[in-house]
């Protein structure tokens, strides 16, 4: 059977571009940034996560709240977090 050639309907480059951040092995002295998406309970979840990570040595850092939860974080949000944090955790509340 001859195999038919197809035009790809996807952008393979984009599909491959998404990856998880590398896991940190040590949180001692790590400044922890938190990004709240502004949905209900996102802040509750993040504070619990931060408390757990503090037990492993993470230092409290900034907690930012997106103005509109359905929008990506702004470039300013990300710049502020990058400037003040060594690691960032985000949570989606619902």
């Amino acid at each position, binding site marked *: *059977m*001859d*195999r*038919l*050639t*197809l*035009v*790809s*309907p*996807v*952008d393979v*480059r*984009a*599909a491959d*571009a*998404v990856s998880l951040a590398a896991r940190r092995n040590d949180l001692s002295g790590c400044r922890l940034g938190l990004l709240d998406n*502004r*949905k*209900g309970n996102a802040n509750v979840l993040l504070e619990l996560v931060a408390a757990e990570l503090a037990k492993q040595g993470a230092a409290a850092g900034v907690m930012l709240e997106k103005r509109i*939860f*359905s*929008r*990506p974080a702004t470039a300013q949000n990300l710049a502020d977090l990058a400037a003040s944090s060594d690691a960032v955790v985000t949570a989606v509340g*619902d």
Partner: protein
Amino acid sequence: MSIAEVSRADAVLDSIERCHREGWSDGLPVIPPLPELVERHVDASRRGAQDVVGEIPPAWGVATVERIAANAVMAGCLPEYLPAVIAAVEALLDDRVGLHGVQCTTHVATPLVVYNGPVRRLLDINGGHNCLGQGHRANATIGRAVRLVLTNLGGARPGGMDKATFGHPGKFSYCFAENEEESPFPPYHAGEGLTAEDSAVTVFAAEAPHNVNNHGSSDPWSLLDTVADSMATLGNNNMYLASDYVVVLGIEHARIVADHGWERRHVQQYLHERARLPVRRLRIGGMYGEDVGRNFWARWVRRDDPDALVPVARAPDDIKVFVAGGAGRHSLVIPGWGTRTSTRSFDPQGAR
């Protein structure tokens, strides 16, 4: 049957199955995007195959004309549909639609696509009987092509980055035309800064349509009270986000309103006045429950007054009124996800 014929049939079936395996389909069989077929669609658009229409969130896949054409072929579109598909994709990239969130939300929302102007007749897009149902190729395949673009180029696959708790049947296709010929009002797009002679597309991140049955009213007040009551329900996002809202008046309902001298703007004003719920009821639902101060209501709503009435949209103009459908005393209300409609003109013969 000859060996050659068996081999050809196997090759066709293999290519269809490959589309399923690759995750390119919406679950239904697709037409394999063979290069010759894709080329015909690209040619019909009178644009270059590698022209970039935009990047589709959340994966930000680059939507070239050729890739959109491949999705349109899979959806079963005719080549001449491609300009209408491209126009819908361009409209969806309007920041007011908030496509990134629409693609990833747990909510049921999916883009509704509505056409106005000459393109409706040129492509035979149904705005009459059963215009949101089955049976019309343009409606079925244009809407399907838009969905395939969003999934394949945006990377929003169910269970992956598409987090929809349920989704709704409009995620297969959600497309109709306004019934301009039987509407008593000027075409919708003529009120959006365009002319009646323009071909236009409007997109909106929308729930499934909810029917409004009113066979009893012969005046606009009681008729539109039925519509308003169907619009203002505790569970829909408009009650908390006050975004745009789409109302589709059936032609018989529209005539009742128009026969009393009402124009589209009067319908919008009346529905904005009547489609409201009190703060005390809204405290039990939505995104924030009792914490009503976090809702995106109009600034003038007194959040500390339990009897204050909250409208479904911030302003009358945010209630978008179309006229469509066939005979029968029904209308539709279509709550939004939480963002805006986007309307733009385009050349249905292709090119910019």
